[in-house]
């Protein structure tokens, strides 16, 4: 059984096994809203940035959100300052966080991905990179993360560029995520993380899409058992560490994902509802671990 204490993720030392899901906690905006308490009580043991792309992106037109029972659909569209803006203005601020920094990156071709990974990995402030492969290859038109061949071709190209950990973020929108995970592992990935959001489209009674971009991704407690299934399948298929996420609301949810084979877990949507959700979940996880004599079971 995994511990609730210090751990490592492909060589990155972590004080505890709870990190954030990319794009669900803006540490810079949170400091403006909550002040230095964000530093003093940082709830995650590593910070995963929002996804950075080579050029700036403004994101999708609104509406960007839809509420569902125990879930939400988002179609944000990866707004970010681009590589130069990130390195110039965001990275120095993120470097002040008291935890290791993992930078999420995405591009739409191997040619664009390579310089992005090189430039980010070259910075001492960066402990590791998460590769967002939920993007089309502009040459093949295929979503990289949905094809084992596309995934391994990308990782093989990126692997020699840095010795820092490369974590591949897996999409749940495939029949067999383990096949993608195996391809990533064989191509040299240091870890995989899953699940990303599940494709979803809130449509109105007249058939019109609610979201400005037409469709988006589902997250929240409703996806938890999907995450458990996929994390368990992937962890059984690969030797590299697995970052598990999807609908974690309580310590028992984190424990279940760790029990399914995750090395660390990421809290995402729960942080929207409560910026300190991860701190509470960690406390609940520790309490569960102290009760190891009691058979595990859902409350």
């Amino acid at each position: 059984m995994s511990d609730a204490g210090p751990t490592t993720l492909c060589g990155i030392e972590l004080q505890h096994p709870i990190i954030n899901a990319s794009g669900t906690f803006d540490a810079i905006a949170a400091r403006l809203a909550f002040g230095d308490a964000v530093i003093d009580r940082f709830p995650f043991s590593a910070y995963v940035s929002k996804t950075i792309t080579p050029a700036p992106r403004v994101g999708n037109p609104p509406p960007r959100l839809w509420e569902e029972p125990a879930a939400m659909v988002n179609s944000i569209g990866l707004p970010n300052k681009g590589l130069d803006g990130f390195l110039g203005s965001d990275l120095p601020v993120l470097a002040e966080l008291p935890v290791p920094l993992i930078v999420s990156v995405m591009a739409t071709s191997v040619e664009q991905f390579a310089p992005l990974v090189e430039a980010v990995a070259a910075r001492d402030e960066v402990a590791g990179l998460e590769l967002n492969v939920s993007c089309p290859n502009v040459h093949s038109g295929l979503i990289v993360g949905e094809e084992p061949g596309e995934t391994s071709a990308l990782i093989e190209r990126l692997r020699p560029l840095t010795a820092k950990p490369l974590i591949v973020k897996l999409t749940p929108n495939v029949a067999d995520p383990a096949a993608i995970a195996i391809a990533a592992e064989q191509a040299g990935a240091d870890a995989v993380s899953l699940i990303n959001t599940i494709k979803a489209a809130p449509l109105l009674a007249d058939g019109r899409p609610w979201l400005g971009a037409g469709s988006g991704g589902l997250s929240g407690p409703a996806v938890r058992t999907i995450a458990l299934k996929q994390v368990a399948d992937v962890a059984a298929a690969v030797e590299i560490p697995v970052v598990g996420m999807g609908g974690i609301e309580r310590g028992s949810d984190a424990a279940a994902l760790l029990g399914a084979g995750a090395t660390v877990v990421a809290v995402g949507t729960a942080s929207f509802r409560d910026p300190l959700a991860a701190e509470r979940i960690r406390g609940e996880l520790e309490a569960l671990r102290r009760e190891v004599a009691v058979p595990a079971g859902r409350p």
Partner: protein
Amino acid sequence: MIAPFGRRRASVVENATSGGYRIITALDAEGPVPAAGQFYMLATEHGWSGDGERPFLPRAFSVAEATSGSGGVRLSFLLEDVGPGTHRLADLVEGEGLVLTGPLGRPFSMPRELNPDAAGAILVGGGIGLAPLAIWRRTLAEQGIAERSLLGFRDREHSGGLELFRCSEVRLASEDGHAGHRGYVTDLLELMLTGDSAATAAVYACGPPAMLEAVRALCEAREVAAELAMESPMACGFGACFGCAMPLRSGGYLRLCVDGPVVRAADVETALVEGAGHR
């Protein structure tokens, strides 16, 4: 004003009927006194997504009144029961827990910051949107700044909250004519900007998107400095989810939670944004 990190429980001390609206007042033992225009993310301690149904996300509400006293800060929120979140909030009873994060966001600017020649403030509220103007009016009055309020309502059933404007110069408009001028509150604003010198005006508005857009267009045409307190669905309220995008005149979007909810009217392309407004 910076918010305490994380959610906290405030205790409901009053749930009052006010016309077609409710005024929920809670005692926040921990929090700071908010600035006018700031908002809170609200949920109820019990019965909020507990059974797996909506509401799931917290709801953003501008604070309508805040008074510091023994035991903490009394915060009042004006709400209309229009959906699963507001329905649960409207059901709160004395002693129940109101779970909140805040105060969040950018507050109103002083009239002289908006317009160096400002002689006072003109507050324009539509329906439930009068909430942030109520605390702003009080703040201005305490500082001896002249303010006049124009409040508009659709009809009797969709009106209330006037007690938040006690001791204030208020002119009313209603589309059904049940109170004040029969028509839009923007008719009153247009008259006021015609009679007064627009050069010394500073306008503050909050209300439904169509009303805000009318105010924005009117102020743009008359070159009147204005701030709009805008509304959008939000998942977090503190800049994490990027869900509350508002189109900027300069291109791209702002995040209403951290760059607003009070924005300079000249900065936004339009107040008519799909999905904006309360529901």
